[in-house]
């Protein structure tokens, strides 16, 4: 095709030699049109990409941001020593505290000019959950605060939360056994009078997971710690193993069938579905090596297997990008192979290696499938590990596993938590990628 046009043009060229170059000929116009059209295709592709990025960001933020807030009653409260003693002397202690709370709430409502609303203990129990036990807990732990004014922020139940932010309709709740129409009226009035407000829910970021019946109390904190310990394992294993393997393959290994085979297999491993690594981890680390289930150590080992090919490939690429003239220069002044690699090649390749490692870690951080099989998904992480051994060996969850668990729970309030978890996970991933970009910019060297 090109040959034909090429051989045709000289013949035409001789007949149009006198033609002016001011006017573009048909052939040039056609080529220019093709080029323009190609540019538009490119722009359209970028436009579609940007649109999806915005749509994704918007939907994640819209669905996930409510998970960071909770509806709570903030009430300034003074409990005297006598009231405390009296409550503690009763049989139903928490009911006594709840009575105080309701009295204070009623007083607050009267002050706010909503005195027509009559709050009762039963209704408050349905709306707020067990208020009394929260107050009792506080004063038993901080007896010195008795007699002082203390500001309590008592969260409403997750159903009220979702009702107020539009997640649940009134009809649906009225027909449920949890809240009566009168309760909802009270909720409406409390919200209008500003007693029931939205506050930032730190427990979502720092807290532990809750059971299936309490979406309001669910937090991602424990699984962040679980992910952190997994990343420690991945970093400690995959960086030295990956870099050593790459240096050997790139700088020392002879070029033969065996090293070719290894190279092909490393590339193939990078494309193996991660669930395969999960089932391998289950068979090798848990069933054969008897390591504990759901432990971040096992998760880290599995993710190491997954991250190694990524690190090896990026490390070899950055070693390759160091010009051979540097190696020749080092050998030329009498450095040994080892000295030329460690004194000259490796420092120059370091930014690339670091970037590859961080991107590999970020991939591992977001990986869910292998964790399904080693028992990290579905585990309710109710406690924080205390110390390194416990962090590595005690069962825990990980961020993506926790998100998956929440998304799979039946209560729709967990769905919102899952979106919120995705936001936190994305913040971590973006931070890691930002570090990678920063390192590359700072240390990259050009020849």
């Amino acid at each position, binding site marked *: 095709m090109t040959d034909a046009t090429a051989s045709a043009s000289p013949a035409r060229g001789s007949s149009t030699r006198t033609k002016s170059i001011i006017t573009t000929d048909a052939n040039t116009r056609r080529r220019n049109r093709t080029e323009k059209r190609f540019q538009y295709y490119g722009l359209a592709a970028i436009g579609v990409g940007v649109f999806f990025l915005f749509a994704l960001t918007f939907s994640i933020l819209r669905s996930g941001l409510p998970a960071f807030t909770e509806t709570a009653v903030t009430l300034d409260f003074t409990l005297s020593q006598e009231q405390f003693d009296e409550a503690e002397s009763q049989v139903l202690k928490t009911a006594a505290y709840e009575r105080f709370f309701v009295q204070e709430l009623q007083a607050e409502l009267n002050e706010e000019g909503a005195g027509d609303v009559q709050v009762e203990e039963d209704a408050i129990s349905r709306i707020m959950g067990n208020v009394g036990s929260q107050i009792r807990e506080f004063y038993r732990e901080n007896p010195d605060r008795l007699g002082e004014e203390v500001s309590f922020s008592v969260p409403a139940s997750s159903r009220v939360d979702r009702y107020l932010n539009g997640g649940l309709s009134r009809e649906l709740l009225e027909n449920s056994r949890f809240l009566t129409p009168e309760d909802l009226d009270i909720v409406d009035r409390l919200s209008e009078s500003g007693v029931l407000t939205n506050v930032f829910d730190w427990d979502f970021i720092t807290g532990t997971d809750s059971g299936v019946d309490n979406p309001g109390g669910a937090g991602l904190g424990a699984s962040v710690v679980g992910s952190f310990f997994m990343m420690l394992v991945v970093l400690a294993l995959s960086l030295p193993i990956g870099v050593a393997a790459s240096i050997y393959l790139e700088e020392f290994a002879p070029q033969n069938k065996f090293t070719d085979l290894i190279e092909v297999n490393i590339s193939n491993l990078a494309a193996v579905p991660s669930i395969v690594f999960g089932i391998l981890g289950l068979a090798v680390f848990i069933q054969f090596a008897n390591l504990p289930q759901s432990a971040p150590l096992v998760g880290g080992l599995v993710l190491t297997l997954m991250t190694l090919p990524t690190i090896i490939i990026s490390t070899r690429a950055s070693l390759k990008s160091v010009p051979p*003239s540097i190696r020749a220069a080092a050998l*030329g*002044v009498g*450095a040994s192979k080892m000295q030329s690699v460690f004194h000259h090649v490796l420092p120059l390749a370091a930014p690339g290696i670091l970037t590859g490692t961080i991107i590999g870690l970020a991939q591992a951080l977001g990986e869910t499938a292998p964790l399904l099989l080693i028992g990290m998904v579905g585990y309710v992480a109710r406690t924080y590990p205390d110390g390194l051994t416990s962090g590595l060996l005690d069962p825990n969850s990980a961020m993506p596993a926790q998100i998956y668990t929440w998304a799979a729970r039946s209560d729709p309030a967990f769905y919102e938590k899952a979106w919120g978890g995705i936001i936190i996970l994305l913040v971590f991933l973006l931070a890691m990628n930002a570090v990678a970009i920063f390192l590359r910019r700072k240390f990259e060297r050009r020849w």
Partner: protein
Amino acid sequence: MYDADHNRTETRVGQKDIKISCKDVQVYYGTNHAIKDVSVEIEDKTVTAFIGPSGCGKSTFLRCLNRMNDTIDIARIEGDILIDGEDIYDKRVDPVQLRAKVGMVFQKPNPFPKSIYDNVAYGPKIHGLAKNKAELDDIVERALKRAAIWDEVKDRLDASGTGLSGGQQQRLCIARAVATEPEVLLMDEPCSALDPIATGQVEELIDELRQNYSVVIVTHSMQQAARVSQKTAFFHLGDLVEYGETEKIFTNPQDSRTESYITGRIG
């Protein structure tokens, strides 16, 4: 040409010692026979030029002299290369030690992306030539002076070596090579990436280096060979066609191929 004449009169005065003696050297790249039966004796304190058309094997042969071809897996070398009577391809010879004795300057200036000081100090450091910082400073200064670049860089030894101009970079590489106190200096087309002025500076330097070293230079430029060398070897298709006094090669070549090359009919 005047320089060449001047040099020639000098070489005639005293008989020079043989520094490198090569006998029946064969180099194979896989199945490709790159160097065929090359025997040559390179004198001490002399500049020897290897000339010839591209792909004739002159660089390959040069790289045999400090075993840089060892880094190429498929390269195979036969025959004897003796430096000061010692076979450098002997099993007991560590190429690292050899390369401290036989320095090399490459075609493209390739300073390490480190400071000027570190570039020169690297070789002496790894060979343990300096006992302390003061000695190392001395070695660096001496090497930079010998490479005729000291005056240009003495105020910015901490600046990066890659920030210098092309000619300065090449002279820095020469300083780096002489810092390890080699006895032979191999130069693989050291001026091909330089402009005429930088080339002139490097050629002047090569002439000075002759006082202390046996210099072997590969060059594409016949004028350069005539200007800087006392001995010239002409390679063609892996054969050493002719070797002798530079003056004789350029004025009265014995082989018709040499004549064709010099007069510009081949190559």
